[in-house]
């Protein structure tokens, strides 16, 4: 349907100058989604990391979902992703044909109970999820050469971020866990400008997400202008302690704590970090569906995810972009996401107190 509409309007807009080729009319096989369009709502702008990731995954879902549906990635920015998620709450269809594809920027305001949040994220079904790991790195002039030396910086550490209660939260919480003295300068308008400020020498401690780390920071590391420290970590039996496959040479925050303190991290700081960080990193990009979506639809997505992970073309492409990260789906993934979205009352209190006292966030 949507394709036809697009084709018709394209003909109107572009005239005869544009030849679309025969890819649009491919005959769909019989299947659950035959002839259907699945709308993937991204609550951020076009060209942003989440939008690009959704477009990256689009052809693989079209190929491996039964009936080869059309995926239509729609951007609905506004309110720091709250507007798009609220739209989903009101308009999602319960048959799996509307997906909210988003990050912790949508999850954190929900977990913290911020004003304006109408969406009930923990009620949603989790169709699939893609890790979105992050790597911390410092400037060489701090004198720090590895994660273990983080407390011996020769200069005050300055971290740049966007807003404490959004995607910077896990990074800031990791500083709490490791008990390091960091001056956080918040108010940048994206992680790109933050990285630029790092290169300009204004900041000396930064976190970047996988694709950016691989393409922008790794060259700097090779030229001796950045020293990688640690990753957020990966899930291992419900604990965020394993090394992240994107950068297996780097320790996780969990490991760094062990090395510094000689014991495994525990306590409220760790619980808060693990909860927020797992939604941000391990399940960084998650596709949510209406709470009443039939189990059959979710199973179909789980099967498609298995097929995508096994697709050699996907493996080759993801090696370039994410160092070979794989999609997650199924009951375990859903349980992990849901538990991270429903932290204990103590963790919630801790987060709200930390954010309001240290970062002036009002609730």
């Amino acid at each position: 349907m949507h394709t036809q509409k697009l084709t018709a309007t394209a003909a109107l807009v572009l005239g005869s100058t544009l030849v679309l080729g025969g890819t649009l009319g491919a005959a769909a096989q019989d299947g659950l989604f035959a002839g259907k369009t699945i709308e993937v709502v991204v609550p951020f702008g076009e060209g942003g990391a989440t939008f690009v990731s959704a477009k990256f995954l689009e052809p693989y879902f079209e190929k491996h979902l039964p009936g080869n549906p059309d995926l239509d990635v729609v951007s609905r920015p506004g309110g720091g992703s709250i507007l798009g998620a609220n739209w989903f709450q009101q308009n999602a269809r319960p048959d799996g044909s509307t997906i909210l594809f988003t990050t912790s920027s949508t999850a954190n305001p929900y977990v913290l109970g911020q004003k304006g949040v109408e969406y009930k994220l923990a009620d949603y079904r989790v169709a699939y999820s893609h890790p979105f790991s992050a790597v911390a790195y410092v400037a060489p002039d701090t004198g720090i050469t590895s994660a273990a030396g983080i407390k011996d910086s020769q200069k005050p550490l300055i971290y740049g971020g966007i807003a404490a209660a959004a995607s910077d939260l896990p990074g800031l919480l990791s500083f709490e866990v490791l008990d390091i003295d960091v001056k956080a300068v918040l108010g940048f308008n994206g992680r790109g400008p933050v990285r630029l400020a790092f290169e300009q020498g204004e900041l000396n401690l930064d976190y970047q997400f996988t694709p950016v780390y691989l393409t922008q920071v790794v060259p700097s590391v090779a030229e001796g202008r950045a020293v990688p420290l640690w990753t957020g970590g990966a899930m291992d039996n419900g604990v965020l302690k394993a090394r992240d496959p994107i950068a297996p040479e780097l320790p996780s925050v969990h490991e760094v704590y062990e090395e510094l303190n000689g014991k495994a991290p525990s306590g409220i700081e760790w619980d808060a970090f693990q909860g927020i960080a797992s939604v941000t990193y391990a399940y960084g990009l998650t596709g949510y569906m209406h709470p009443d979506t039939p189990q059959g639809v979710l199973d179909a997505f789980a099967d498609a995810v298995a097929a995508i992970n096994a697709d050699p073309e996907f493996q080759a492409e993801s090696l370039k972009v994410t160092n070979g990260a794989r999609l997650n789906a199924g009951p375990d993934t859903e349980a992990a996401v849901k538990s991270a979205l429903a932290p204990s009352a103590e963790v919630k209190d801790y987060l709200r107190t930390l954010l309001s006292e240290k970062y002036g966030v009002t609730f």
Partner: protein
Amino acid sequence: MFEHAFTALDALFDPMRLAALFAGMFVGMVFGMLPGLGGVAAVSILLPFIYYMDAYSGLAMLLGAVSVVYTSDTITSVLIGAPGSPASAPTAIEGHALAKKGQAARALGVGFLASMVGGLTGAAILFVAIPVAGPIVLLLSTPELFMFALVGLFFAASMIGKDLAKGLAAACLGVLLGVVGPAQAAADFRYTFDQVYLLDGFSLTIVALGLFGVAEVISMLAAGGGISHERVKVDHWGEGFRDFWRARWLILRAAVIGVFGGFVPAVGASASTWVAYGHAMRSTKDKSRFGRGEIRGIAASEGANNATVISDLVPTLLFSVPGGPAAAIFLGALFSFGYYPGPRMITQNPDLMFLIVWSVALTSVVGAALCFAITPALARLTRIPFAIIAAPLILIMVIGAYQSTSTMGDIFMLFVLGALGWLMKHGGWPRAPALVGFVLSGPMEQYFWLANQIHGWSWLARPGVLLIGSVIAIPVMLSVVRWLRARRHAAVAAPAPAPASGLAAATENEDIPVATPSRGISLVLAALAALMFSYALLDMFSFNPSSRLMPALAIVPGLPLSLYLLARGVQDYDNDFARDANELRVLVVLVAYAIAVWAIGVSLPTVGLIAWMLLVKARMRLWTGLIYGAAVFVAVRLLFDLLRGDAPVGALIPLS
């Protein structure tokens, strides 16, 4: 290097890729002409199609669209007076004034040629500077970015006009609009009235459309008749070419200003356009025509905005940091094709870099030529009773506004700001300072805060800061010296004719009647502004201290100024509302339309509005009106579907 340049040129001259480039250019031209829809809308509508092409074709298509938008939007700005894109507001002010005097051809000719020069300069800079631009961008840290915004504001001060109190109050009002939404310094959301819609603040497109576009359309809808009272002739381009040649160095300087604007992420096109405009004003001896049709104003702003949109690609390609919103989408497309811009891109993909340069250069030239070709036909439209054009135009503005978040808030905000713009227009408040205050308050606050957090006050002594600061300091010192010298001279010699009287003489010769502001509306607006500033002052104390600086900067001068204007308004009050009753009626209908869309969805109210505009306002005959109205309606629905996939659905009766 040249070998790669030729390989890239050869690659571009593949028929499929040229077709893609020109298809993109065509879409960019159309969207540039539609008020409120610019590069972002053009690029996002093309985005789905590029995935069916090879990388070079897809990217060429997007570049074709991006690089022509600021050329073709000159047409809308000049002929209609509504800026085709926010960065064209100076062109709208000067160009439309010229069009009203029957000099549209001159304004358009200069605009197109300046755009072309701007585009080519941008392309040349990309070509030459890509290997060396990296260090320049790295030199521009937060303190320098703050200084750049400050320079923009300083130059925009030249727009304030004769009534100093109203001009400054308008600028303060703009700054106040700009601080709505998230504070940069601390986690405060300012003046959001608990509306999620306001959490991101106002969209630039909607503010520009509301303040300029809606108010302009209201006036013309009420006045009836064509846009120009004289015949708009655009077949004699000669004068435009001569003006262009006379202003060639100004245009080149403006293009260089634009290029630097592009290097600065976020401040970008809007600031550099005003800086170039201010530069044009400072370098022109007779300043009296600025604001009423000064060709040099058009030359400078068109040269700058086109150069900016292209040099926006420099930070995008070198650091993956998009220089502007359209560049952000382009970056996304690069990612999708497996290109990851960054320091290594020049060595890894030299062909791609040069393909970009060629695409931009080719589109700048062909786009300008095409604009010359189609303008005579479009100019004929200006003879048609305006209400006939107003019908599609106002609906396109609604669609343009709806692009920001696709919620009803966009449409409401368009008409609320439209009402404000209309009040300002009739109350004699200049709208340009308000727009500039709005645009620059965000970056100024952000970079001031970041610079102070990172460097303390030591940033004031940075060489870059001093260098950029001298752009402000030197003209100020020169004026002071000139003033002192003039005073000494005046004291010694007999009182020579003061420059002020020369200015007055020029004003008298002016052939456009300068509308006197309505006294009633002046009073209403002053009261409204005083109310807004008072409320803003009260609410300000609930923010974290670091979030109070920028609002205070607007309120501290804004409140006394608006109180003064209120007192002046009461004194001068005269019940002259009847003069603008026609326009007031149009405004009421438009607000009613917005409420109706909220209640019962977009279709029925739109049919009603079209019928009212065509049958009542344009007095079309029933059958022609029906056919034309149906065509407009279908086109509008199609655009809604094409751009967003869904039109607003009614809250009370869920129709769409």
